[in-house]
């Protein structure tokens, strides 16, 4: 290595470190609430609200976690939540298909359809509550996990993402496949979906997160705890005025940790996938 090269390398490394410092500070700010959450979940009640606030507990206790499983039907809610995630992934497929349809088959009406889809992102959920309930009720799908998943099965955000991404798929590729005699559905599964892998992973992650955290529809569309999810189950612990902070934190921790693990494992694929064909 020449002197200039090694000097440049050293300067680059210094620059990297200089960037890493404020970045790490920022990351710690992002992480602090989580550390706090987990720490609080293993504290005793009085320690959890003590002043000055201690980050780490002086006494460890898993009482809050045991309370979660004894006072709440936690395992049951977790299974429901997992089921909802599964159904959500089916919805992801429908979303991808819609994005594909809007991207590759342009037409005036379809353009308006797309804007209509976008509009649904612009209304507060509370407004949709009663009409949605009446529809699901009429279809006989209340108190049923599929019915509960229906209102949020297709995400307007997702359709938008897929459309923008799939527009970049070269038409020539699709035409070639058509000439070869492939059916449209086959083209979708064979070409469009694989190319959209990065978006699939991103949207998949978002779908998993949203389904995992789902609260409003499982609450409204259930007529028994049978179909409650983790979020709803947790809110059962909220008393009218005072709430046990350690149990709240334990519940929140149980809900958050699986998602974080999932993200940590998946993030390599997300960003790596993007390097192959970025969203331009």
């Amino acid at each position, binding site marked *: 290595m020449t002197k200039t090269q090694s000097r440049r390398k050293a300067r680059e490394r210094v620059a990297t470190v200089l960037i890493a410092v404020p970045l790490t500070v920022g990351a710690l700010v*992002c992480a602090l609430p989580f550390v706090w959450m987990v720490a609080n979940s293993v504290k005793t009640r009085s320690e959890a609200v003590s002043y000055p606030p201690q980050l780490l507990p002086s006494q460890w206790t898993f009482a809050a976690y045991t309370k979660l499983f004894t006072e709440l039907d936690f395992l049951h809610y977790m299974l429901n939540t997992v089921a909802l995630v599964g159904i959500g992934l089916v919805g992801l497929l429908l979303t991808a298909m819609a994005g594909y349809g809007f991207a590759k088959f342009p037409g005036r009406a379809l353009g308006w359809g797309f804007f209509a889809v976008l509009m649904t992102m612009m209304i507060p959920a509370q407004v949709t509550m009663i009409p949605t309930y009446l529809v699901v009720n009429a279809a006989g799908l209340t108190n049923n996990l599929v019915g509960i998943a229906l209102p949020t099965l297709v995400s307007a955000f997702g359709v938008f993402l897929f459309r923008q991404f799939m527009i970049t798929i070269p038409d020539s590729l699709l035409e070639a496949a058509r000439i070869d005699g492939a059916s449209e559905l086959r083209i979708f599964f064979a070409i469009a979906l694989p190319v959209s892998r990065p978006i699939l992973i991103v949207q998949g992650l978002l779908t998993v*997160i949203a389904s995992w955290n789902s609260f409003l529809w499982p609450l409204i569309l259930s007529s028994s705890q049978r179909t409650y999810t983790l979020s709803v189950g947790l809110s059962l612990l909220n008393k009218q005025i005072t709430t046990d*902070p350690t149990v709240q934190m334990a519940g929140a921790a149980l809900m958050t940790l699986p998602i974080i693990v999932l993200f940590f494992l998946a993030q390599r694929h997300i960003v790596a996938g993007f390097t192959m064909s970025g969203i331009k």
Partner: protein
Amino acid sequence: MQSSPAPGGLAASDRRPLPRRPVARAASHRRPTSRWAGWGFALPALALVAVFGLMPILVAAGVSFTDLDIAGLAHPETIRLVGAANYVQLAGDPEFWAAFALTAGYVVVGVPLIAVLALAVATGLNRSDGRFFRLLRTLYFLPAVTALVAISVIWKYMFNGQFGLFNWLLDLVGLPAVNWLSDPASAQIAVGLVAVWRAIGLNSIILLAALQGVPGEQLEAAALDGAGPVRRYLYVVLPQIRFALGFVVMTTLIGWLQFFDEPFVLTDGGPVGATTSLSLFLFKRGFRLNEFGYASAGSIVLLVTIAAVTLIQLRLRKAHD
């Protein structure tokens, strides 16, 4: 958005040729199938969106012209059409306008702030692909994935005037305690801060991905031309990630016009209404009190506002492209 070829987008296995079949179709055959195919693909999702997304909007529009409340729900025959009365009431309600102004304020300050911060974080994270930086990526994403209840409890504890972390830190350096969530001005900042903190995660990941897609050759060419790092960034990188940036701005804009979660869980719109956004105003005034006609009118106003802003943004971008 031009369709440009996506370089290297296909994995090797995708390039396996499809089984050949005798070609006997006329070229004109393709046009009609295309259109129907488009509808076919979009239909299931469109149907769901129509039923669960558009239908409620139409219902809300209809309800906004009535005096529907919980009594009306029980006895639909007592519902009366009141014309534009709900809208008139809204227009004459100073709290509605205060909420509108507050939301606008948050959008004007918050959206650019998030865009800039997310870009800064993404640029920083893009510096290296090493294990440490990958860990940082996960940390930045954490706020985006947590359930709101956890975020609210944690931040409320940290902001608490008596035993909160922030006041304790201030105390350590000898500064006076701040009543973060009790003083109207600081409450607005505190709530905004949490919202920005929450929004950075997902947006920075999107921008990071876009940054990583910037073709290296262009940067090399610019460097050879003598452009310094700042110029390279401004004139090569930024234009390349134009779409992702626009996407981040648009979705954040739509989200922040409906600003609800943070003020709801942190301050319930307080103190004395200082952090009541438009959505929260509708929720408290309309939904909590079961005044559905009034709440629907407000929701339609919000919808029209968001749609207008989005259309303007889309037009601007089309013109720019």
